[in-house]
C-alpha cells in the first residue's frame, strides 16, 4: 500500500497515484494493483480511498441534485429544460405544484422559453433522460436575483468542507445564495452592490479552486469591497 503521487497536488490523466490495496474513488481506475488518475484534478487521499477531484468537466446528473435550468421548449404535457448536462431534461406538467388532472390552459403561462427554473432531478439513469420536479420548497421559476454559471466541477469547492465556504460567503456578503449542482448559482442580495461582490467571489472560487488558503483570501476580498454583511448588520442594529 503505497501512495506514489503527492496528495493535494495537481495530477494529469494517466498519472500513477498509488499501488496496492486501495479503494477506488471518483476519476481513478485500476490496472492490476496500480491506481491511475483518469482526469486533470487534485489528488485526495482519505484513509484507504484514492480520489481525484476534477478541475474541469461538465455536469453529469444524479437523482436528488438541485439544478438550475433554462426552459428551451414548451410542449403539451411539459417543458424541455437545459440543465447544462449532456442530456435534455424533461419537466412534466404533473411535477409542478397546483391542481392535478388535464390542464386547459397553455403551459407557457407557468414557464416560458428562456425562463430560469430551480428544480430537482427526480429520476435519471444511463438509459433515460433526466426527469425534473419543481414540487418542493424554494423550487420553481427564478424571477429575481442574479444567476451565475460556473463549471460544475467547482461546485464542491464553492460549498467547501461541511459548507464552510458557502456559509462564509452568505455571511460576509449578506446575500442569500442557492447552489445548483450543475454549476448554476443563484444570488439574492439586499443591494446590487452586495450581489456584485458575491458574484465576484463566486468567480474567484471557480478560478482559484485548487489553491491553498482560498477561504481567507476571499474573506479579505469581500472585506475590502466595503459591503455590509450579516455580521455588521446585526452589530449596527
Amino acid at each position, binding site marked *: 500500500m503505497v501512495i506514489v503521487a503527492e496528495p493535494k497536488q495537481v495530477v494529469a490523466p494517466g498519472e500513477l497515484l498509488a499501488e496496492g490495496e486501495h479503494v477506488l474513488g471518483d476519476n481513478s481506475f485500476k490496472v492490476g494493483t496500480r491506481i*491511475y488518475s483518469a482526469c486533470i484534478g487534485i489528488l485526495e487521499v482519505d484513509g484507504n480511498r484514492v480520489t481525484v477531484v*476534477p478541475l474541469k*468537466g461538465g455536469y453529469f446528473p444524479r437523482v436528488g441534485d438541485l439544478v438550475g435550468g433554462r426552459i428551451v421548449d414548451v410542449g403539451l404535457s411539459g417543458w424541455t429544460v437545459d440543465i447544462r448536462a449532456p442530456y435534455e431534461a424533461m419537466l412534466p406538467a404533473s411535477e409542478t405544484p397546483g391542481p392535478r388532472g388535464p390542464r386547459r390552459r397553455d403551459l407557457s403561462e407557468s414557464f416560458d422559453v428562456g425562463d430560469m427554473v430551480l428544480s430537482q432531478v427526480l429520476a435519471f439513469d444511463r*438509459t433515460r433522460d433526466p426527469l425534473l420536479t419543481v414540487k418542493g420548497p424554494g423550487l420553481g421559476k427564478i424571477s429575481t436575483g442574479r444567476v451565475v454559471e460556473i463549471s460544475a*466541477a467547482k461546485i464542491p469547492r464553492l460549498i467547501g468542507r461541511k459548507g464552510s465556504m458557502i456559509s462564509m460567503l452568505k455571511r460576509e456578503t449578506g446575500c442569500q445564495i442557492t447552489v445548483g449542482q450543475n454549476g448554476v448559482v443563484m444570488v439574492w442580495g439586499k443591494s446590487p452592490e452586495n450581489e456584485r461582490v458575491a458574484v465576484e467571489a463566486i468567480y474567484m472560487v471557480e478560478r482559484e479552486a485548487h489553491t491553498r*488558503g482560498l477561504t481567507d*483570501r476571499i474573506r479579505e476580498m469581500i472585506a475590502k469591497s466595503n459591503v455590509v454583511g450579516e455580521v455588521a448588520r446585526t452589530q449596527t442594529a
Partner: protein
Amino acid sequence: MPEPKQPEKLIDDKGIRIDGRRLDQLRPIKLEVGILDKADGSAYIEQGKNKILVGVYGPREAHPKHIALPDRAVLRCRYRMAPFSVDERKNPAPSRREMELSKVIRESLESVVLTDLYPRTTIDVFIEVLQSDGGSRCAGITAASLALADAGIPMRELVAACAVGKIQGHMVLDLSDAEDKYGEADLPVAWVPNANLVTLLQMDGILTTNEFEKGLTMALDACKTIHGMQQEALKKKYLVIKEVAEEREETEVVA
C-alpha cells in the same frame, strides 16, 4: 509562392539535416492548453513550423440523434487544413487525405477516452491545422489528447505521437515537410505509455525490418519525451494560477 526546390542534400557530410538538427533530434515543441474560451477544452501546438489548434466539445447531446450509441459516447474527430496552411492554397473542401486522417486520429484517441461513462452523447474534436510543416497528424494527436484532458473528459492517459522516416538511407526522427516529400519513407507512430499501446502506425515508402525496428524505437523514445511535455503543459495552466494566487496572499500578509 512557388514550391520550394528540392535541396541537393537532406543530410550534410557532418550528419546534420537541412534545418540544423541531428538525426535523432525533435523539432522545438511548444504546447499550451485552454486557449479557447468557448470550447470545453482546447490546446495549441507548435512543432517546428507546424501550428495546430484543437478544440474539444462535449460530452454533449448527440446530433443527429441516430448516431448516438446506447452504451457509450461517440467520439467524432475532424482534421482540417486551413487554405493558407500550405505553400499553394489548399482547397477548403474536405479532401480524401483529411478524411483519412480524421479517421485514424479518432481511432488513436478512442482507445484512451473512457467513453462508457457518457452513454448516448458525443465528444467532438476539431483539429485545425493553421500552418503545416510535415508530421501534422502526429502533432494533431498530441494536441488533441491534451485538449480532451483540458475538457475534463475522463481518459486513461495522454496519447503522444511522433513520426520517424528514412532519408538518404538514414533513419531520422520527426520529419519536416521537405524531408517527408523528398525522403524515402515516413512512419508516424502514436503511443500510449502506461498501457504500452501503439494506437497509430502508418507507413509510406519502404523500410527493411531492421530499419523499421530502429525507427519504431526512436519514435517511442520521442513519444516518451513528448508525453512528459504534455503533462507539464496540462498542469502548468493550474500551477500558474496557484502560484499567482498564493504569492498574492503572501505579499498581502507582509503588507
